[in-house]
């Protein structure tokens, strides 16, 4: 399977910068498999990222790729998609990049329902800068800037993007890789703002500090703590305590932003034609 997606990787840019045991490569592969299965034209596919370990993915991907400034990937991607709606535009972002410094862009891109496929690598920490807490760090967990335990409350980022107007929302993990690929495929299919939270692991800047064990142990813990959204319907509240939901969480249809804009342009074209007659 890796062979099949190699065409989407800039093999000459390897080795990558990620630590041994990092979950980022697993997320990247799931995305590429979704692209393969969806038969997207790689020449018409653009990847945009912000700043962080996860955001470095763009450098290794063999598409038109844009590694922007911290938090701003969605705003750059909005410009690309609006200027050239025929492009398939993906955004790769981290939990810090996408929900702290880039949080405002996230809710507004979702509100516009612009056709972007956003994959947020949630490792619960600022990995690149060495382990500071993010808006998705669970309460009580340790970070270099929360040495006595994090007292802030985290976002449920899927609930947030849904409320903000996203028309496709899913959550997967680096344990449930097949499902993660399916979620990205669902995002691709949706003509609107699609958001996939990919729960991943950072054994180096998060796991070690919180004594979560080795990378395999951290990944196995995802299996133990994730509950499929369908299965969850049959469970009692106390059975769901401490668990998180995975799967396709939300789906609806709504006017897509660039299509609405093109309709506006078409209106003027028609008026122009009428005028010429």
């Amino acid at each position: 399977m890796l062979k099949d997606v190699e065409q989407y990787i800039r093999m000459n840019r390897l080795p990558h910068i990620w630590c041994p045991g990092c979950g980022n490569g697993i997320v990247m592969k799931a995305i590429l498999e979704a692209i393969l299965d969806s038969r997207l034209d790689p020449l018409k596919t653009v990847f945009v990222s912000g700043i962080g370990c996860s955001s470095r993915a763009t450098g290794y991907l063999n598409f038109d790729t844009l590694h922007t400034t911290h938090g701003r990937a969605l705003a750059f991607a909005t410009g690309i998609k609006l200027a050239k709606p025929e492009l398939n535009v993906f955004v790769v972002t981290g939990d810090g990049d996408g929900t702290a410094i880039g949080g405002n862009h996230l809710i507004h891109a979702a509100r516009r329902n612009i056709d972007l496929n956003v994959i947020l690598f949630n490792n619960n920490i600022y990995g690149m800068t060495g382990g500071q807490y993010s808006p998705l760090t669970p309460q009580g967990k340790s970070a270099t800037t929360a040495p006595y335990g994090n007292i802030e409350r985290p976002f449920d980022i899927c609930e947030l993007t849904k409320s903000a107007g996203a028309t496709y929302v899913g959550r997967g993990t680096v344990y449930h890789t097949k499902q993660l690929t399916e979620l990205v495929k669902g995002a691709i299919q949706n003509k609107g703002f699609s958001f996939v939270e990919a729960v991943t692991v950072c054994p180096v800047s998060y796991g070690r500090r919180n004594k979560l064990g080795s990378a395999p142990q951290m990944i196995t813990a995802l299996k133990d703590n994730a509950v499929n959204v369908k299965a969850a319907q049959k469970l009692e509240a106390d059975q769901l305590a401490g668990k998180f939901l995975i799967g396709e969480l939300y789906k609806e249809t709504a006017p897509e932003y660039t299509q609405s804009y093109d309709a506006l342009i078409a209106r003027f074209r028609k008026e122009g034609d009428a005028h010429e007659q």
Partner: protein
Amino acid sequence: MIKQKKARLLQGNNACAMAAIDAGVRFFAGYPITPSTEIAEYMAENLPRVGGKFIQMEDEIAGMAAILGASLTGVKAITATSGPGFSLKQENIGFATMAEIPCVIVNVQRMGPSTGGPTSPAQGDVMQARWGTHGDHPVITLSPASVLETYELTVKAINFAEKFRMPVILLLDEVVGHMREKVIIPDVSELEIIERKRPVVPPDEYKPYLDDGTGIPAMADFGTGYRWHVTGLNHDENGAPAGKAEVVQSQLTRLFNKLRPYYDEISLFKTYKTEDAQYLLISFGGTARSAAEALQTLRKQGIKAGFLQLQTIWPFPEGTVANLCKNKKAVFVAEMNDGQIIGEVKKNIENKESLFGINKINGELITPQEIVQRVKEVVGVC
């Protein structure tokens, strides 16, 4: 769109927006702020009529980011703002400089610092235009003094951005942006319009940061098969992140120096009665109008003054200023700030004791009378 080529009353901000569309701009992203908002409003109304796109973003950071995304697809893109918004745009202006993405940022200056005076004219962003974003970097900044010049310099700014593959800053001020004048706008067919250089090699041979001898590498549009990487990190000629000192040095040396061979072409200015002048006035933007008027008065009163109006602020026209300041009894720099351009003049003038600033920072224009008075005070003692 409004018909061209007849005299009409036009506002500076509208002239700017109109020129942008005439020069081929088809994308605008921004956030409303006085005194620049008319540019966004004009774009919102007129871009969809020509198949272009307008978007009001959630803030100026996003507006700046969106025009860079659009520009990467090959579309000419522009944004407009004022003081506080210009501050927010700085990080991505740096990104545009580093990644070499053509775009134009219009800053209709208002009084600062901070919220300052939203409708008060000022020229306090000269140094911010030069050094607002972090790190060493090249920059082009143009500043018009009239509605017609606003039209002309907007076209120039867009051309420079495309030709030199970089952000270009157009510094308007509240005076010029909100002023209405009767102007005859040139026909679009008469305009010189420059398109960015695109690669002629096949995708597998394309190097987005390779110097082809001009200092300005060719740029491929996203979605045309070139599949290249754009980053704000130090990078090699392929655009791949690079940390090796030799690679960083060679790319940054090219970047910092890429305008040098083109200084004459970029350096725009106007001179009035400088041939026999004993005294020289230097000004730019809205204040240049008062200086031009003051020049007439001084001449009528028998004082041999000349006037240099800078249209290009950055790169600072060092040679021109040094030449014109030579052998002058006194040089006066009029600007609506606490003295920014005067510092650059000082670097390029031999007799630093004969250099005088005429400044105002109370939100009011410098009047011709104030310039005349200051010159006469100095002439009296000369």
